[in-house]
Structures are given as structure tokens and as C-alpha cells.
């Protein structure tokens, strides 16, 4: 890799992070968003992952698994941010504000709300209700297109667990789709 020829140090890490950013920032933020459903929190999670990668750049580079490291760091960070409830659910806020507009008449707004919630009851909403592990497996499998073994390594669980989580998740999602 060209970066190998560069002198080690901050410049090397800066250069690598800049390239990684150009190649993966958008996709990783979207991955994080699928996990936390909040763009600001998603960006925070991926920013943290990039910073961690920068700080440990030399050992990560030498491992040759840079993007896998980033991916795992993003998933872990999303879980951590959710755990710490830094999430201010802006979508909920927007929905609540929309539903709270003064001057509505009861019939129209009640109908509007039912329609709106039906339209939003997408696969994504069902995904959000899955247990965390199942959601992570589904997003890594169907958004990141990782293999079962890659997911197992990323989440530090057994391949058998990946299969089980995926199967349970898809069964739940199928039930949701069939209800519609």
C-alpha cells in the first residue's frame, strides 16, 4: 500500500483517515442510522469510530482489517450511545409535534394520524422493535452484506448465534409484513 512508504506518525494516520472517510463515512453513518434511527447520534457513533481508528492507526493498519475494525467500532458505539440514552429521538419529536398542531379538527386529524402511522409502519419500524442483537445481525447482513462468519466476528458471537438471530428476526419481520 502506498501508505506503507510514508513515514509513520500523525501524517500517515491523517492521510489514511481522510481516505477512509472519503470511502466509508456516508455508508457507515447510514449503517449507524439503521441501528439508532437518529442521524446526529449515528454521526456521533461513526465519528467516534474514526477517531478510535486514528488513535490506533498503526496497529489497525498492520492488522489489515481496517474496515472491519471500523464496522465493529460503529456497531459497538451505537449500542453504547443507546445504552447511555444520549439519543434524543428526533423522529419521535417531529411526529409528536406534527400530531400536536393546534387548530385541527378531531375527525380529520384522527384519520390523518392513522393513515400516517400506517404508511410509516414499514420494515424499518419493525426492525426497530427487534431485540438489539437481532437488529444488528439484520443490518450487517442485509445492509452491509457481511457473511455469517464476518458478522460473528464483528459481534463477537458464534456463527450459530448469528444464524439463530437472523432467523428469529426474519420470522418476526415476516409476521409484521403479513399483518399489513
Amino acid at each position, binding site marked *: *500500500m502506498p*501508505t506503507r512508504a510514508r513515514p509513520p506518525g500523525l501524517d500517515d494516520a491523517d492521510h*489514511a*483517515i481522510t481516505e477512509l472517510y472519503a*470511502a*466509508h463515512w456516508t455508508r457507515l*453513518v*447510514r449503517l449507524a442510522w*439503521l441501528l439508532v434511527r437518529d*442521524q*446526529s447520534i*449515528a*454521526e*456521533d457513533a461513526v*465519528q*467516534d469510530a474514526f*477517531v*478510535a481508528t486514528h488513535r490506533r492507526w498503526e496497529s489497525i493498519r498492520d492488522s*489489515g*482489517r481496517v*474496515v*472491519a475494525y471500523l*464496522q*465493529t467500532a460503529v456497531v*459497538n458505539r451505537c449500542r453504547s450511545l443507546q*445504552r447511555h*440514552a*444520549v439519543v*434524543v*429521538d*428526533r423522529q*419521535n*419529536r417531529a411526529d*409528536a*409535534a406534527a400530531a400536536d398542531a*393546534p*387548530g*385541527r*379538527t*378531531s375527525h*380529520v386529524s384522527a384519520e390523518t*394520524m392513522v393513515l400516517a402511522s400506517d404508511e410509516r409502519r*414499514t*420494515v*424499518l419500524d419493525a*426492525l426497530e422493535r*427487534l*431485540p*438489539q442483537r437481532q437488529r444488528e445481525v*439484520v443490518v450487517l*447482513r*442485509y445492509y452491509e452484506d457481511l*457473511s455469517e*462468519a464476518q458478522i460473528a466476528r*464483528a*459481534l*463477537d458471537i458464534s456463527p450459530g448465534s*448469528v444464524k439463530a438471530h437472523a432467523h428469529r428476526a*426474519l420470522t418476526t419481520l*415476516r409476521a409484521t409484513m403479513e399483518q399489513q
Partner: protein
Amino acid sequence: MNTDDRNDGHRPEDETVVIGAGLQHVEETVRAQLHREAAAIRPQDRLDAILAEAHGAQLSDADADAGASGRHRWLLPVAAAAVAAAVASGIWVANRPAQTPPPAASPVSPTQQSSTSSPTASTTPESTSSSPADTGNSAALCAKPTSGVSLCNDTQARWVLPLPVYYVGPRTDGSTSLVLFREFGLIDVATRDDAADKATAALAEAVAGGPAGAAYRPMWKGVEVDKVTVTAAEIDVTLSTGAKGLSASEGQIAVDQLVWTAQAAVGKGNLPVRFTLADGGATLAGDARTDHAYTRPTDEMAVWAILSPVWIDAPSRGESLPAGKVTVTGIASTNEANVQWAITKGGTTVASGHTTADVSAPSRGEYSFTTTALPAGDYVVKVF
């Protein structure tokens, strides 16, 4: 440099997840939906912030490892104060009735001012997951936190949702005219989708009178929300007792406060709200009695008379955001739709400006403005 090593992990045994044929269409739908929804997300540029933070961390690794030198977010509201301790410093926001008179030039003279809460952020380190090895585990992850704050849905942990709650305060500082202010507080609810649970939680906040440090007027001292039932036709609210010592006009706005809060939390428009008092009383507040249901007016002028002419929807009181530009959004009903704003830090104005809402009074319009880049710190947003 080839930065895409996603296939590095492929080995012969790396088969894809094999799912029964009956689920194949589900897989296809999920894959398509995930890509479609995610494609709508347009991330903001943060490369500079990443490099700056990385170098900041390298200058002082000890601090970075303690998690104390990370980015700065708006501090979370009181409800999540224990969690907000993870943030070393941030930008504080709060909104409440004005302490100072509004500009004399504004005939409508709406004022909404925020106040600084004293930052209580401790240096308690947040455990950073800077290492992918830190995968945690579901059991620990979903343990019910002491603060009651959790968005984990694997367990019985409760939810914290931003719910609109109405509080009572003077229309302008010193005014005897009481109006409703809406705030989005982060509120602990038992379930995220149950309208009655959300209404119960929001009403409990409303009767409590207002967040700590806010200058709202508590109208329901000593009153508790016993039960809320939501049917297709109405919202039934059982209070422990009626409000005491309120005049007719105070009683009216007190009832409005609970009606607007309940309807907002339920989110199904103007479902009539019927009150029952557990102590058997029939006097709800002031002259208002429990013998009929209440609802919001739909007439613009009537709404104008009840609500504060301006309020802030985001950021929430005490919320923390990344340092940098801050976008403030809210609702205003002002003369010619004018909205003035100021950001203060330690009493000094650090940014100010004006914008317009999309409609003017008596209609209520949305406004939005973005500040210049603000360094990390505790700030107060004023909109008037």
C-alpha cells in the same frame, strides 16, 4: 490505498446466512427497504472534527482514555441528568417565561427566554467503546439503569421519549395573562407505543408544574395523575383531587394545560378529555367542573389567547449537541412573523439575529435559525 477490505474476511467457510426458502421474500424486502431508507440519509461533513478530535486525544491520551475530552453535546435534560454526566461540558438550553420585558417595538410582545441551569456534569468517565473488542453483552447492556433511562428494547427497561408537555406561565414578564408553553421533555414512559402510558407520563410532568429551574407557575400542587384511559372517542383522566385556590381564569388555563398535554401525548387530534376526581369531588379547577369533557379550540384567535406566542421545540432544555453550529427550531405566532433570537453564555450575548416564521399571527408558523459555530460550553437560547 485500498481502503475497502470488507472482503478480507472471506474464507471458504464464510457462507452467507442460509435462511429457509419461506423467508427468502422477507430477505429481499428487508434488503431493499434498508437500502432505500438509508439512502435518504445525507451525513454532514465531519472530517475536520474527526481529525481535530483525534489529535486532541493524542495530545493527551490519558484524558482521552478517561472519555473526558470527547466532543461536546448539549447536556441532556434533568430527566437524564445522571446520564449527562458523561459529557464534560456542553451547551445548555432551557426555555421559560421571560425575566426581562420583551422589545417594546413588538406589539405582540411574545417572549420566551431560556435560562441557564447550573451545569452538573461531573467528570464521570463514559466507558468508550474505542476498541472493537468491547462488544459488551446483552445482559449487562440491558440491565435497568439506575436513572431509569434506557432505550434498550430487549428487556422490561422503560423508554425515554421526547414528549410535548404544556406548562403555564405569564405571556410576558410581569403579565397577569397566563398562557401555555410547550416543551419537549425527555420523559420516562413504561411503553413507547401505548397512548395511555404516554399521556400518563406527560400529565405527571404537567401537574408537577415544570422542570427544575424553570419559572413556570405550578397550577396543580398536591394533585396526582391516577389513571389515564384512551378510547376511540375520548381520553379519560383520573386525578387524585382538584386544583385548589385558583381563580376562574387560572382554573381555565390549568384545565387547558392538562387538555393540551393529554391530547398532544395521545396524538390523535382533539379527542375530548374527560376528568374524574378520585376523591369524589366535582370541582376540577377554579370554576371548571368535571361534568363535561374538554377539548382544544380550533379557532385561531382562541388558540392565540391560550398559547405563548413563541416557543422552542429543539434543542430541548438541557440537551447537549456537538459543538459547532446549532440549529434551533420552534413555533411562533408573532407580528409579521418576526422572531428575534440571542445565544448567551454566562450572561453575555455571543450570537444573535432574527428570522421569520412561515406565517404570522394569529396563525402559528415554524421558524428555524442556525447560529455561527459555537465552541463547547454552556449556552442559553432566547427567542422573543
